[in-house]
């Protein structure tokens, strides 16, 4: 799978907060490119030119763009001007505005502009955690990956329809052969929901499609238990009721990465 490229445009690109986000994006397996203007005196217009050139050259899969680019009053909303240009030239390119101005009239105007082009644009607060930035970019880019890593010890390969596990970080991931067919489909549903939004519950109704017989709920329960036993064995741990796949208030299941 080709590595996704994310362009970062921020006048505080050397700040710890941007660096932390950049490192988290790299952990995600994304290639990050920081746009830096040539001049030492950063002004919004230089960012504007540099960004458009960088998009032309790099053809990124997503853009993380600050709103305020420089200290001059004219540069207070420069990022929104750049956004307008991106939206007009590359209307399908996902742009996540990373800004302290995540609310208010300036944002509303920009959103209305993006709506006119049906562009994938979203806003996130600069104080958001790197994890939040990754989750938002995942959804904005619509990436439903073929490989879903769940923590450091589990991996779902959607294309090959396999789940692999390892007992410690140094060992190699080995396929868990017991999980296939409907059991794989159930685990894939849970892993995909977790990848999109870790707090999302997968309701019984969606998982019961992968069960047989009249007692779909009971059959689902059995399959979940079997999945947990197989994965517990592969991970070398005993998985309890509140580990890995959790029944939430008899409404559905959710996946939580194993604590090892």
């Amino acid at each position: 799978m080709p590595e996704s490229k994310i362009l970062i445009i921020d006048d505080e690109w050397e700040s710890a907060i941007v660096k932390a986000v950049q490192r988290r994006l790299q952990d995600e397996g994304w290639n990050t490119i920081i746009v830096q203007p040539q001049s030492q005196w950063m002004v919004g217009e230089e960012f504007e030119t540099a960004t458009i050139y960088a998009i032309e050259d790099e053809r990124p899969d997503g853009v993380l763009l600050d709103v305020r680019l420089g200290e001059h009053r004219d540069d207070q909303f420069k990022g929104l001007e750049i956004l307008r240009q991106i939206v007009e030239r590359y209307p399908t390119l996902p742009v996540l505005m990373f800004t302290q101005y995540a609310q208010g009239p300036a944002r509303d105007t920009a959103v209305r502009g993006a709506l006119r082009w049906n562009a994938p644009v979203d806003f996130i607060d600069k104080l958001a955690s790197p994890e939040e930035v990754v989750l938002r970019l995942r959804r904005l880019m619509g990436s439903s990956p073929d490989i879903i890593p769940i923590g450091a010890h589990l991996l779902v390969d959607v294309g090959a329809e396999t789940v692999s596990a390892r007992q410690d970080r140094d060992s190699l991931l080995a396929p868990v052969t017991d999980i296939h067919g409907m059991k794989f489909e159930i685990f894939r549903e849970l892993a995909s929901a977790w990848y999109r939004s870790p707090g999302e519950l997968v309701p019984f109704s969606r998982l019961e499609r992968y069960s047989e017989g009249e007692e779909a709920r009971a059959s689902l329960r059995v399959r979940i238990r079997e999945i947990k036993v197989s994965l517990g064995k592969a991970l070398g741990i005993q998985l309890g009721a509140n580990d890995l796949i959790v029944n939430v208030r008899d409404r559905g299941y959710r996946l939580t990465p194993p604590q090892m």
Partner: protein
Amino acid sequence: MLGALILVFGLANLVVAPVVGEAMFARLWGIEPLTYMGAALVILGLAITSLAYMVSDIVRSRRRASDEDRRFAERWTQVTQQYFDLFNHDLGRPLRRILGKEREIREQLQASGSDIHPSVRELLDEIEEQTPSFRLMMSNIQVLIELETPNTGEHLHAVEPAEVVRRIVDRYSLVAGDANKQIVWWSEPTEFGIVYCDSSAVEHIVTNLVDNTVRYAESFAEIGLTRDDQAFHIRVWDDGPGIASRYLPYLFDRGWTPEVARHEERTSSGLGLFIAHTLAKRHGGDLTVESITVPDSDHHTSFTLTLPLQSAPSRTAGEPVA
């Protein structure tokens, strides 16, 4: 108009009086009665015309003043908004530096594999935990400014409520996890679709509710999204100790917090629920609360936001905002 008519009629009387007066009245007074009548009508006409002019002038000047007041209020709001943006950005700068350093230290400690001293971990967690509160506080001030603005009508957009809830859960998952609390969400139907509403208002209301619920939950918080023919509902539930029924009537009052009732040090501004309730009402909906307190084993608190399902505005883009 009436005054002018009477005035014209009176003047006509005065003009024709010398000609027709003798023929009309057998016995003339000192001056014929038609002249008296004409003079009286002229005075009456002048009085009514002046009065009407004065009244219309007052109304016009009041209308002008009210237009000026409105324009001034809008200008004031705009200026306040600009200053708020600057203030928000500049106040956020030191916090961004602190937060960035905290994340860097946390990563370095994790990479080194050494045990982190509990007090260091507590400090790092505290910085991370206070961040959502700061974000919410800034956004509450922003909404307070908007609430002071003359109502310019509703801003309806196509919104995916599931995405709104999803991003709020993203925001609070880390903090909830650090405090050993679980936060989950679901929607019924699973593919919830879009609704037409003010996306910022919905996001703001639910963020305040979730912030509250993560703070008071014992170990579990749940957000459920449902819809019927008339409305959609977002229920925010937590397994916290509950709110005593005697406090419930004050819950949505500005500045009220449980600490106020208990005469303790306040840990929040007491603005969140007030703003959430005000916004819900402003958008034709409602925000209700239901709570069961300890020692009941089913103790919990549940807030339900209900907003009407509205039809698409005539000029809207098809894609959801959220």
